[in-house]
């Protein structure tokens, strides 16, 4: 077909190229705008925090204000560390995982098995609403339920309840998505051997979806690790290492808040933040690697 009329856009090719370049520049500028702050945040935390990081930082409990003040006036590093916070975080997160992971996985499997039921849709909506509930509200709820009525005082358990409710939506969703990715033939093969339902779930579906499930769990853990607000109303904090879940317990984000409120311990804010950030980052990277390594049904 012969071209009778040159289309208008060819006339203006220079103008189009200029617009293209302008737009490209804009996109690059915007992406830098998001990368640069992250870079500054990380470098600031590392520069300010690294000075306090030593072996004692991980094994000793937090110092009191006087010790910190003396150290600062003598120009020494502040003694003590955040061992009470680290142990408390582990305790609280462990208990909330024990509560949230089995329940969340069971709900996720239920949603997958009964996808179109009315009840499933209601459950899915509730899960979404739960994900949007501010963490401080969960803290208040846990305060009313657990602190007031069950442990009769601030406790690690109350903190775990609040955090496990935060974990639930993520675990439910990731379980359902993982189950959807498992080829139906695998389930059929198990049922065709007469396997009872619970064995199909425990011995076939969960091992097959292991990578997806663990990714979801790690991501939900990294989300709750930095939570401070619900813990203020529930776990409260403690200056000693506590292993009893019915007693007030410290946590790393709680310690950061306490250090922030004490002008003598500002340096510790940075080092605790560095520790928390490194930990969460490690979990995130780990979950990504697991997800990339073992894709379900790739080798078939």
């Amino acid at each position, binding site marked *: 077909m012969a071209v009778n009329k040159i289309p208008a856009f060819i006339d203006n090719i220079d103008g189009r190229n200029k617009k293209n370049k302008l737009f490209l520049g804009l996109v690059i500028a915007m992406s830098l705008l998001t990368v640069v702050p992250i870079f500054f945040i990380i470098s600031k935390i590392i520069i300010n925090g690294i000075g306090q990081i030593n072996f004692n930082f991980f094994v000793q409990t937090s110092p009191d204000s006087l010790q910190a003040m003396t150290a600062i006036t003598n120009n020494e590093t502040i003694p003590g560390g955040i061992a009470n916070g680290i142990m408390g975080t582990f305790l609280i997160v462990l208990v909330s995982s024990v509560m949230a992971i089995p329940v969340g996985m069971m709900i996720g499997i239920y949603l997958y098995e009964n996808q179109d039921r009315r009840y499933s849709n209601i459950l899915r909506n509730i899960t979404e609403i739960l994900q949007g509930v501010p963490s401080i509200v969960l803290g208040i709820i846990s305060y009313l339920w657990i602190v007031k009525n069950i442990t009769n005082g601030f406790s690690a358990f109350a903190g775990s309840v609040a955090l496990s409710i935060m974990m639930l939506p993520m675990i439910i969703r990731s379980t359902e998505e993982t189950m959807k990715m498992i*080829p139906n*033939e*695998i389930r*059929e*093969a*198990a*049922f*065709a*051997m*007469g*396997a*009872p339902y619970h*064995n*199909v779930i425990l*011995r*076939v579906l969960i*091992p*097959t979806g*292991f990578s997806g499930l663990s990714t979801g769990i790690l991501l939900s853990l990294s989300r709750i690790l930095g939570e401070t607000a619900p813990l203020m109303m529930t776990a409260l904090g403690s200056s000693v290492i506590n292993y009893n879940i019915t007693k007030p317990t410290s946590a790393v984000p709680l310690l950061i808040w306490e250090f922030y409120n004490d002008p003598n311990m500002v340096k510790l804010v940075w080092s605790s933040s560095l520790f928390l950030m490194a930990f969460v980052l490690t979990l995130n990277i780990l979950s990504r690697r697991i997800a990339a390594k073992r894709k*379900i*049904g790739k*080798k*078939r």
Partner: protein
Amino acid sequence: MTETLINIEKPVLKVRDLSIAYEAGKYAVKEINADIESKAITAIMGPSGCGKSTLLRAFNRMHELYPNIKTKGAIYLNDKDIHEMSTIELRRKIGMVFQRPNPFPTMNIYENVIAGYKLNGIKLKRSERDEIVEKSLTNVTLWDEVKDSLFKKGTFLSGGQQQRLCIARAIAFNPEVLLLDEPTSALDPVATARIEDLLVDLKKDYTILLVTHNMSQAARISDNSMFMYLGELVEYGKTDTMFTNPKDPRTEGYLTGKFG
């Protein structure tokens, strides 16, 4: 529909007035009557969507996994109604192999073979397990190929090997009947030929029901053939007779390639 019954002495499976509907009034399988010959290969043929897979799955009640399924009529395994048996008991007696090879991806070859025992919580001694694994893999002519890599994942095998592993997994339970749902449709011709030889070998010990899309495969290895069309069992007879002298015009049309 009694004309579709052929005379078979001591049938292992008897189907009586079997109808299966996925939705009310929409039948996937309509009033089927048939006797299945013991220790023989029975092929079920027909165009896509004719209900052959549904019929096959009805034999070990796998079709009940679909939601809203309605089943009428009865199937008897050795004169016992399969709907009165527990699915666990039934599926131990009637094993199944699927269209695409589906070894369990998290288990190694050894565990895949004894998966039936494991998943049903049956405890075996180590020597018993070893014996079952070796015997099953030998029966499917896979033993020599995998005996040095028993503890590697089953998914590293080739498609044909995986499918033979799945057959080994089904016969490890020592079932009476083996159901195969287009077992070679995902395989290349060489692997297909091996599976066909294997099935002819296995019919000494097992009753085999084979759904196939491939007419020449049915002609090569089956003793009896069923032809299904739109959920009905149009014709059922000895494979030789049916391929040389079909009684129903629809069967003739399908076999000569007019449709399907």
